[in-house]
């Protein structure tokens, strides 16, 4: 079989993963020295049935959530999976965060085997089976104990809502009473997949009325984020961030800034200029008072200008001799296109985008005399934060304790632990606990943006109009090279984050080639919600419409034909067309459609747009989205995640843009980085197709169809193809002129 994504790139084996983890990124602490941290989460009064769950004598069931809560609802959905198999009374369940310890709390996702990470929509798929097994195992322990106590065969016992029941005698005992005498065996009982419930017997999973456990704390101000932490004796810090890696600060007015009341330190550091003082207002005043000249002679990004660089990107996109890395190959696309009766070619662009998570980056760090380091932070990857802090402070990860807080938005920004590292460095310098809080301006200056990308697409049609060859070349900086260097080295330079979506696994095309060209410009490119699929589907799904137009077929019909071998892909496209009333004409408006798979989940979207020709502003009136993410744990939250992703993607598609000059990001706050506000939000209509397939992820699935569906709608309305993200008013005006 020649159809491959290159398995070894995706299924980075556990050993390979560990071995390649010598560098900073994804170097998870696997020494086992972190084991035991979980215990503090448990009440002394009760029984810890396994690493995941403790039942108190009062019946409280405490379940640990291995992922970080950044708005996606894992603090509810993951414990719910365990509670299902345990047959726990959900009203008695308390959800708490597990410590960072991949040996115990690592997941089972094929992309990140054994890792404890909150990214790439993997939480539910990673933990669906482990948490079910853990729940079933805990239930077994309870049943065995009761069988012994009541002297009945264990097979005669059943459970319901935190009770063990013996039907024959009508006896019942609450879980709280069982743990009063229960003994937890040293070797926990084994659970086979056959011991698990059949999905039709689920009582908690899939129930729309079960609400998120964190919501009440988020309507009365009691929810605690990293920014809310205060520890005794702490001082405050703000860091004027380096505009690019390698830039060196020359502080022009250090003495003046030191004189600001409440300021104790002004410290130049590799990551910027820190001001430390006894109040947040003093450090903010000092930060804005700083006058710094940057010596960028050693900074790799210094020559980079995102506008000027486009010419070079475009050249590399066209030149057949540009060195490329193969991402996905079926047959021989070059040959098929060369021999085709008709060929098509198109290019696309996307600009850098910024996460704009509402909580600016922050962390509290305390470095104790005995070498213990405490970090309070909202992070997407606890073990990574511990490992990088340990590395920078020249100690071992077991000395670093992460006190995980809620995240005021993540979207990929809180993977890289720059804030904890900076706070820890400052705490070790000033010998006091430090609360570091970035200004919004510094949060943007220190952006870890989605890369700027350029796409060249080619297609070949045979004499009958059949699509026989497809080629997609992306030219961009590689996110894996920056965010996951060990993996990047292990895969021989494939960008798993940045190229996600070029693989076209669900379109039946006899010859496909997807390839990447690496740019190295020194930008700190990182994962942004939806990763590669965000810009890649904009390019490829726009191109599908162009092919359909060239063939004179309906874009919906074209996609149904392309997915004819994949029932689930086909079904979401059909569903969304029906929801939107695809064939119904709307005066002054047009519909555009797009399909996207994302980590084995499926989505199809339709946008209804109009365009103000004078201003170039695109108005999206309606957005319909049909998805199949496999089995859904919490339908109401899943719907909310789809709405959220659609709005995030609309914002990115229509207005978000970081421009870079001399290696530095030009934007500074929400005044010049425009994120979507309420007045621009369309009517959103979502549908989740019922599926019993294993869950494959939800949090980003709403992202990739949005930009191409809008572009396709605009093309059908105006006859003009938009080839550049964001599709801002200025660009639209230019395209229509």
């Amino acid at each position, binding site marked *: 079989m020649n159809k491959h994504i290159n398995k070894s790139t995706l299924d980075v084996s556990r050993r390979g993963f560990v071995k390649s983890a010598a560098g900073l990124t994804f170097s998870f602490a696997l020494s086992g020295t972190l084991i035991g941290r979980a215990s503090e989460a448990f009440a002394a009064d009760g029984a810890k049935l396994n690493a995941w769950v403790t039942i108190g004598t009062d019946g409280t069931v405490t379940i640990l959530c291995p992922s970080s809560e950044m708005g996606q609802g894992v603090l509810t959905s993951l414990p719910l999976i365990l509670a299902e198999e345990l047959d726990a009374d959900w009203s008695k369940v308390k959800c708490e965060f597990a410590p960072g310890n991949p040996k115990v709390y690592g997941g089972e996702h094929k992309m990140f085997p054994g890792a404890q990470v909150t990214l790439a929509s993997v939480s539910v798929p990673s933990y669906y089976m482990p948490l079910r097994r853990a729940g079933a195992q805990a239930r077994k322990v309870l049943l065995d104990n009761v069988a012994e106590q009541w002297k009945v065969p264990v097979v005669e016992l059943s459970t319901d809502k935190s009770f063990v029941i013996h039907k024959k005698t009508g006896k019942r005992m609450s879980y709280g009473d069982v743990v009063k005498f229960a003994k937890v065996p040293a070797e926990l009982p084994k659970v086979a997949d056959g011991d698990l419930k059949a999905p039709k017997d689920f009582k908690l999973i899939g129930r729309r009325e079960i609400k998120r456990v964190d*919501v009440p704390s988020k309507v009365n*101000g009691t929810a605690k984020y990293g920014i*809310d932490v*205060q520890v005794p004796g702490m001082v405050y810090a703000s860091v004027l961030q380096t505009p690019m890696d390698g830039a060196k600060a020359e502080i022009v007015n250090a003495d003046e800034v030191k004189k600001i009341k409440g300021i104790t330190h002004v410290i130049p550091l590799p990551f910027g200029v820190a001001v430390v003082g006894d109040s947040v*207002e003093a450090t903010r005043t000092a930060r804005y008072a700083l006058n710094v000249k940057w010596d960028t002679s050693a900074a790799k990004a210094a020559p980079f200008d995102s506008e000027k660089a486009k010419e070079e990107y475009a050249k590399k996109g066209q030149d057949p001799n540009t060195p490329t890395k193969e991402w996905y190959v079926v047959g021989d696309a070059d040959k098929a296109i060369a021999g085709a009766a008709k060929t098509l070619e198109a290019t696309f662009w996307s600009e850098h985008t910024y996460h704009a998570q*509402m909580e600016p980056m922050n962390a509290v760090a305390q470095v104790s005399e005995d070498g213990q380091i405490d970090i309070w932070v909202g992070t997407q990857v606890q073990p990574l934060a511990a490992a990088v802090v340990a590395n920078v402070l020249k100690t071992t990860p077991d000395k670093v304790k992460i006190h995980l807080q809620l995240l005021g938005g993540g979207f990929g920004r809180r993977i890289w632990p720059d804030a904890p590292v900076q706070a820890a460095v400052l705490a070790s310098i000033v010998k006091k606990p430090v609360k570091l809080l970035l200004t919004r301006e510094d949060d943007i200056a220190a952006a870890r943006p989605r890369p700027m990308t350029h796409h060249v697409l080619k297609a070949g049609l045979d004499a009958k109009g059949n699509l026989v060859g497809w080629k997609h070349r992306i030219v961009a900086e590689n996110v894996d090279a920056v965010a996951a260097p060990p993996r990047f080295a292990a895969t021989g330079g494939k960008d798993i984050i940045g190229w996600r979506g070029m693989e076209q696994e669900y379109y039946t095309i006899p010859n496909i080639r997807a390839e990447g060209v690496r740019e190295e410009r020194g930008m700190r490119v990182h994962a942004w919600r939806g990763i590669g699929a965000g810009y890649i589907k904009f390019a490829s799904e726009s191109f599908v419409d162009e092919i359909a137009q060239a063939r004179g077929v309906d874009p919906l019909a074209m996609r149904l034909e392309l997915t004819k071998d994949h029932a689930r892909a086909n079904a979401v496209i059909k569903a969304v067309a029906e929801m939107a009333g695809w064939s119904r004409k709307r005066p002054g408006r047009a519909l555009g459609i797009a399909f996207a798979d994302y980590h084995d989940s499926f989505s199809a979207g339709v946008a209804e747009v109009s365009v103000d020709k004078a201003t170039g502003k695109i108005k999206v009136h309606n957005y319909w989205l049909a998805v199949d993410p496999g089995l859904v744990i919490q339908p109401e939250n899943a719907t909310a995640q789809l709405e959220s992703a659609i709005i995030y993607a609309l914002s990115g598609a229509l207005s978000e843009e970081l421009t870079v000059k001399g290696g530095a990001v030009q934007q500074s*706050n929400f005044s010049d980085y425009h994120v979507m*506000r*309420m007045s621009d939000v369309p009517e959103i209509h979502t549908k989740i197709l019922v599926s019993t397939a294993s869950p494959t992820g939800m949090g980003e699935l709403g992202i990739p169809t949005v930009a191409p569906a809008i572009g396709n709608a605009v093309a059908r309305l105006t006859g003009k193809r938009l080839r550049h993200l964001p599709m801002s008013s200025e660009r639209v005006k230019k395209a229509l002129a």
Partner: protein
Amino acid sequence: MATIAFTINNKATSVDVEPGTPLLWVVREHLKLTGTKFGCGSGLCGACTVHLNGKAVRSCQTQMSEAAGKRITTIEGLSPTSSHPLQKAWIAEQVPQCGYCQSGQIMQAAELLSKVKTPSREQIVAHMDGNICRCGTYPRIVRAIQRASQEG
């Protein structure tokens, strides 16, 4: 430094700060009422919204000198039992995701409902447009305000 007295969530309070200090930092760091959030520091996002004598203001843009002698209400003081109609509606509609912007959203919405009993969709959007929610909970915010205005 000056001693500035005011009422916060019905409690008389005073702090010693520079008169130009933004109310936001006094509320969050001095008084430890951390429900009010910092998002931009420039009046662009609404995360820091509180009530000053019943009017929604951006606390990052309100100097302590302006707060002197005034009545301040934060999310913690909106209802002693978290049972303001908006809070109940926010739970019913499952509005918050990361939740970070929501104190500001609720305080902004509370001002609207104190002025207009049953606002139209247009009135809601116009009133709420200065509050960013990066998690895109906007459709649910609209529904929750409508629900609160009906069930209020």
